[in-house]
């Protein structure tokens, strides 16, 4: 396998990347995937030069990233699709086709990523259709029943049973990747806070890390610890929100409202340190804007003590309720083998028994010195995805309490130098949903000419497509909530 090997947040010079012809490129990528590496990116180096692309693979055993370059003929942007052999590349190839006109030859399922109705140069897209007696189609969205983001779901059913689900997204597309290229420094941080408003900390963390790495800036240990504390606060808040949602979808109102109360405490803790219930305004290049002091530490500790004590009682009630377990167990199951093949990440992957956590496998920031424990569950069903989130809340609380007691001293913000020219960097952060990847590439004068964002939802929506097969359509809401994926993060 011919590749450039780097680490998470390690900047590299563009001329270090080996660029191969199209056959060697696909061979090299296939070799990496055969070795058990996972694809995290497939995109051109420069948006105006789509014929030079890179594929980024991660090797979680060695904590390393492999960059494989491919140079194509300018008028012949096509390559043999890898998706038949490695289903995880399927969606990355669709994205490359949609954004830059690449043709993945023999691709099994070219479908729109962010455009609703067209694929490959304005050809109309047809949903798969099941035919036969008593077969029916259910179309839901883009506007759903609750206060949630838009997306279109097309079910092919026979009675209650779903045979096939297609999820058509893109309604949230705001063009963030292009906006970041033209944005000022101040605008870039705000944009990254708005990639997915429920993952403000995760995405802004990844964005600031790309810029700091390109500038060769090492932020202080105190700032690193503060960043990790708020990341864990966000994880707690959103896990509580998700658990409440799952309970709500099976009609367990007392549990849903109890988690709701605790979530308020968690997001109000974020407001104590950042002024925003979602952690907006805290991240700046070179560190963080606000510091911990005795007063806000006391406020946050008091709130989190309540979360810790009460969540134990609520978890106990939920996970010993026969009614809840009947709905959770063996519902929307994703097997480990399947999850690996289609490249699932984050909470969903860990619930299927895959050991995958960026904080542990590609450690960054404070997690290099203060590790967190890896939690996995084997069953891959709604139960596992809900239970895992309850367990992760406990681990995040432990991390926060420990760090708040021993905050390292030092400045919270330092100046960031100038951005290195002709370079690139990949920053991976474990957001509450899973792996967030930001890639930045610069030109001769240090301007960012390519910025690529991958939210964990990009991988995991595909998992939900397939998890719905051969389940009852009435289980869709609870399965959907157990995946808890982002529309905005996918659509960008």
């Amino acid at each position: 396998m011919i590749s450039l090997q780097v680490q998470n947040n390690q900047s590299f010079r563009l001329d270090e990347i080996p660029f191969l012809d199209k056959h060697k490129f696909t061979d090299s990528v296939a070799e990496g995937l055969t070795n058990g590496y996972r694809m995290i990116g497939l995109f051109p180096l420069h948006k105006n030069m789509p014929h030079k692309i890179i594929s980024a693979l991660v090797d979680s055993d060695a904590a390393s990233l492999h960059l494989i370059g491919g140079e194509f003929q300018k008028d012949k942007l096509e390559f043999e699709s890898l998706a038949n052999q490695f289903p995880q590349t399927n969606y990355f190839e669709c994205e490359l086709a949609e954004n830059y006109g690449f043709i993945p030859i023999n691709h099994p399922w070219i479908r729109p990523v962010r455009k609703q109705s067209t694929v490959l140069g304005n050809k109309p897209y047809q949903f798969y259709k099941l035919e036969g007696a008593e077969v029916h189609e259910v179309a839901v969205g883009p506007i759903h029943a609750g206060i949630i983001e838009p997306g279109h779901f097309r079910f092919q059913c026979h009675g209650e049973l779903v045979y096939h689900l297609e999820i058509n997204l893109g309604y949230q597309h705001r063009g963030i990747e292009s906006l970041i290229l033209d944005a000022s420094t101040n605008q870039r941080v705000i944009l990254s806070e708005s990639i997915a408003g429920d993952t403000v900390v995760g995405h802004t963390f990844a964005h600031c890390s790309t810029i700091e790495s390109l500038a060769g800036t090492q932020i202080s240990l105190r700032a690193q610890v503060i960043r990790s504390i708020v990341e864990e606060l966000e994880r707690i808040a959103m896990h509580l929100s998700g658990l409440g949602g799952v309970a709500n979808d099976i009609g367990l109102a007392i549990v849903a409202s109890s988690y709701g109360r605790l979530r308020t405490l968690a997001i109000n803790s974020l407001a104590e340190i950042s002024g925003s219930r979602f952690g907006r305004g805290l991240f700046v290049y070179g560190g963080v804007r606000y510091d911990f002091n005795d007063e806000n530490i006391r406020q946050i500790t008091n709130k989190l003590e309540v979360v810790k004590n009460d969540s134990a009682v609520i978890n106990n009630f939920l996970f010993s309720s026969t009614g809840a377990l009947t709905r959770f167990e063996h519902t929307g199951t994703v097997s480990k083998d399947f999850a690996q093949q289609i490249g699932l990440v984050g909470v969903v992957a860990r619930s299927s028994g895959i050991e995958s956590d960026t904080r542990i496998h590609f450690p960054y920031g404070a997690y290099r010195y203060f590790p967190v424990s890896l939690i996995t569950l084997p069953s891959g069903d709604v139960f596992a995805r809900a239970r895992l989130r309850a367990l992760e809340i406990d681990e995040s609380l432990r991390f926060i309490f420990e760090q708040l007691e021993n905050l390292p001293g030092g400045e919270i913000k330092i100046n960031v130098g100038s951005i290195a020219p002709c370079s690139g960097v990949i920053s991976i952060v474990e957001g509450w949903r899973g792996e967030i990847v930001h890639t930045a590439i610069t030109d001769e004068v240090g301007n960012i000419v390519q910025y690529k964002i991958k939210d964990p939802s990009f991988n995991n929506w595909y998992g939900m497509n397939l998890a719905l097969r051969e389940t009852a359509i009435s289980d869709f809401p609870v399965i959907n909530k157990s995946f808890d994926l982002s529309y905005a993060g996918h659509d960008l």
Partner: protein
Amino acid sequence: MIDAIKLRILQGDPIIHDVRNVSLPKLFRGLPTIERVACPDDCKKCVEACPTNAIKLNPVSIDLGLCVFCPLCEEACPEKIIHFTNDYHIAAESREKLIVTKETKTISAEKASKEIKNYFGRSLKLRQISAGGCNGCELELNALSNVNFDMGRYGIEFVASPRHADGVVITGPLTRNMTKAIEICYEAVPKPKIIVLVGTCSISGGIFQNSKEIQRNFLEENKIDLFIPGCPPHPLTFINGLLDWLDRK
């Protein structure tokens, strides 16, 4: 059963009884104030710092319809005349009212017409449309129904079908891909109907104002009844905005 009752007891009394006067964290960025101090000649540091062009000079003003409530202008001002307070009462019925000047002390929504009050004063059902909202505003609107804010006690609720709704609440900068869906949804709401814009993105496009992927014609073609600024707006901003507008205590 006993365990469920224990859970209920554990809930205690989490509701915010007086939504009018809540003390939010000191760092919370709500209504900005601009001190009555003259700016140094040619200083435009706040304008340069602002990521969304919300600030105008001579005299200094901040448009909350564009503001994303980051503290960059406050930090940039050499005279320290801009200061974000934790006052969350910032909703208004007109776009102009969202422009904060040195004279602005408070913002509150003017009472709605008698007709609107008669129709919706005691019961208002809303259909939410997310049109590129990042899920920040959506989560805060969801929070309105939790045990802390419990907006249902005022007869204001979100419903699933536009047919059951008295109006729409729009979040997000109005993406091109949602244009058709917004029109169909609004059309499905029976008359008389209202439009509430929640969050800076929906009011002006916010940080996405220059995006080629947004399509905001719908807002020019229809009358907007209430603007709830914020990034995202605090749930209390939403409740108080509606209570003021509907002339409730």
